[in-house]
């Protein structure tokens, strides 16, 4: 009986989460961006559901890539990683021990970040192609300079994100570790069941702010959209994805939005995702609030360059460190 209950909980949670995640991009664009910008906006199902379905029926292209198969497989691998991440957050999976811990979560998120690097370095879109002969238009001063592709630039920026950009998110994860005194999710939830949600402490509130900024950075949302931005690298690592592979990209983003919000609910509210637990509704509410807040912030922000990005990340990271110190106190 327990096994059936656990199976229903795991599969049900994954399925419901996946369905809800498909609506998140639509909610973000229809109810926030479009309303703020005083326009009608797309139908709510358009960005997350109808667009991927449409892409599944489109003819695909072979990307300009040294390893096209690997390049095309990367969004699906990203999706699988996020599914695994959500799986480890479900209480029925806590028997896995170290895999249901902050360390495993950090590891999986890092793998997710590395995917952007791979995507960027494996793609060479036509947007950056130059002439097959020496380009001497207007008497170029640097005729032998090696060519760089937008995706290559994106890949380098993804490396910078891994190196420092995602600091806030990871620091925020350790606020709950410091409070609960354990890296295991089961212990963190148990601590909050006894002491109340970490969010309602000083350290938790600071950590939540830092987590939210980290959430935006990881999702490459304006103003932290350095991996993909209209003024320079356009779609960045995703430039060459077409048809079903682009559908995977869209689905992955929506699912990552949901999973990170679920992670927040687990670490800061003590509510693990479980479809059979009534408190799952709170997880869903958090999953809705996060994209909405992110959409409000992105609608009122320009894209940051490193000049704004570095100080923001440094400042938010300092707040995160202070939150950890406060948690120990």
């Amino acid at each position: 009986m327990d096994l059936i209950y656990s199976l229903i909980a795991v599969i049900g949670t994954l399925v419901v989460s996946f369905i809800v995640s498909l609506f998140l991009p639509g909610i973000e664009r229809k109810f926030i961006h479009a309303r703020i910008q005083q326009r009608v906006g797309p139908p709510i199902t358009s960005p997350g559901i109808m667009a991927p379905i449409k892409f599944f029926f489109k003819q695909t292209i072979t990307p300009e890539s040294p390893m096209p198969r690997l390049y095309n497989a990367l969004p699906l691998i990203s999706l699988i990683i996020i599914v695994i991440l959500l799986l480890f957050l479900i209480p029925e999976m806590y028997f896995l021990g170290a895999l249901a811990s902050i360390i495993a979560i950090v590891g999986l998120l890092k793998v997710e970040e590395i995917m952007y690097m791979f995507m960027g370095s494996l793609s060479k879109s036509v947007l950056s192609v130059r002439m097959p002969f020496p380009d001497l238009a207007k008497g170029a001063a640097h005729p032998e300079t090696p060519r760089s592709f937008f995706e290559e630039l994106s890949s380098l920026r993804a490396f910078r994100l891994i190196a420092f950009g995602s600091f806030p998110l990871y620091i925020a994860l350790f606020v709950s570790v410091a409070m609960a005194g354990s890296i295991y999710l089961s212990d963190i939830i148990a601590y909050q069941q006894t002491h109340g949600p970490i969010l309602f402490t000083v350290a938790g509130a600071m950590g939540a702010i830092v987590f939210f900024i980290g959430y935006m950075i990881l999702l490459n949302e304006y103003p932290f959209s350095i991996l993909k931005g209209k003024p320079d690298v356009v779609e960045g690592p995703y430039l060459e994805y077409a048809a079903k592979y682009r559908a995977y990209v869209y689905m992955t983003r929506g699912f990552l939005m949901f999973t990170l919000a679920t992670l927040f609910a687990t670490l800061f509210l003590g509510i693990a995702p479980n479809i059979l637990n009534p408190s799952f509704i709170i997880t869903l509410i958090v999953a809705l609030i996060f994209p909405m807040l992110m959409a409000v912030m992105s609608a009122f922000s320009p894209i940051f360059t490193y000049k704004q990005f570095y100080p923001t990340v440094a400042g938010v990271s300092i707040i995160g460190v202070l939150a950890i110190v406060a948690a120990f106190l």
Partner: protein
Amino acid sequence: MDDKEENRTVIEAEVPMGTVHPGALEPYRLRLFVEDEIVRDAEMTVGVNHRGVERIMEGLPVEKANSLTEKICGICSNIHIWNSCRVAEIALGIEIPERAIYIRIIMGELERLHSHLLYLAHGCEVLGHETFSMRLFYIRETVMDLLGMIGGNRVQYGSAVLGGVRPRCELDQTRIQKLTEGMDLIEEKLTAFADRFVSDPMVMSRITGVGVTSAEDALRLACSGPTLRATGVKSDLRTEMFEYDPFEFDVITHEDGDVKSQLLMRVFENFEAIKIIRQAIRDLPEGPITNRSWEMKDVPITKSYVEAPRGTLYHSYALEDGRVRNCVIRTPSMANIGAMQYSAIGHHITDAQLCIVQCDPCFTCTDRAIQIIKI
């Protein structure tokens, strides 16, 4: 090894952008030579949209050739046809009725308003601030409606014909009322936008000190129009055009020459345009709007310069048997290309498009003639 070879600097990478790029409204090729994402050199090439308008105009009757110039630009169509008519009017000594001059001024300033609002919206889009961009487009809609009301179209609304303005562009009381209300609405919305824009610290951080062109460099690079005025040089052809004599307005200048100056200068220039339109409506003289009593004759090449929304616009041609000969058109963006390349140097690659956009490029109109270099 020659000197050029010895002096060649080694640059880390070249990032080619365009001819098709989502950050650019029009097709052009940009080569950015970068080191650690900082632009060390930039090269810009236009020539994708060459349509040979001057060649098509060659031998056409002057009225037909004039109407063709309206098609040069989708943003400043009116100023092209106005300046083209102006060439023939100067050459043939045609007197323009005062009412027609006032209507031309109203159309010209409405065009400046919509061009500057489009510029600001595009600037905000390149900044990544879509909300500001959308709001500016909404403000611009009022101007477009007014242009459509007077000219009959949203894009090809040119009012000038030889000797005056089209009968379609006559201003009756209803239209004057709508113009007055439109100016009040635009002023109110633009003031609200300007307040919000300058008080946004994130936006200010992105545009302050970026893409700086000093007054000396702007003059050296032969910049014109608002691009030059934003560096502190008080240069506006409207002060020299006889059509603008009855109107009082300030020539707006900013000292810094950065993206912030370029954007804000155009915001303030919009208020001046509103001021001119209000004066024109208030003092609109009675009388005919077209002078038909003129005779065609052969004239040598005649030149006319006007202050287009983007800078100095030049048209010249000769007339033979009522047909256009040796037509030359020079659009303002041609003068500002140097500043676009120059201002991008030393800035982050994300700012490069912003540095170009700050000079208000309109390359489709700029593609007038090409020189093919044998490689």
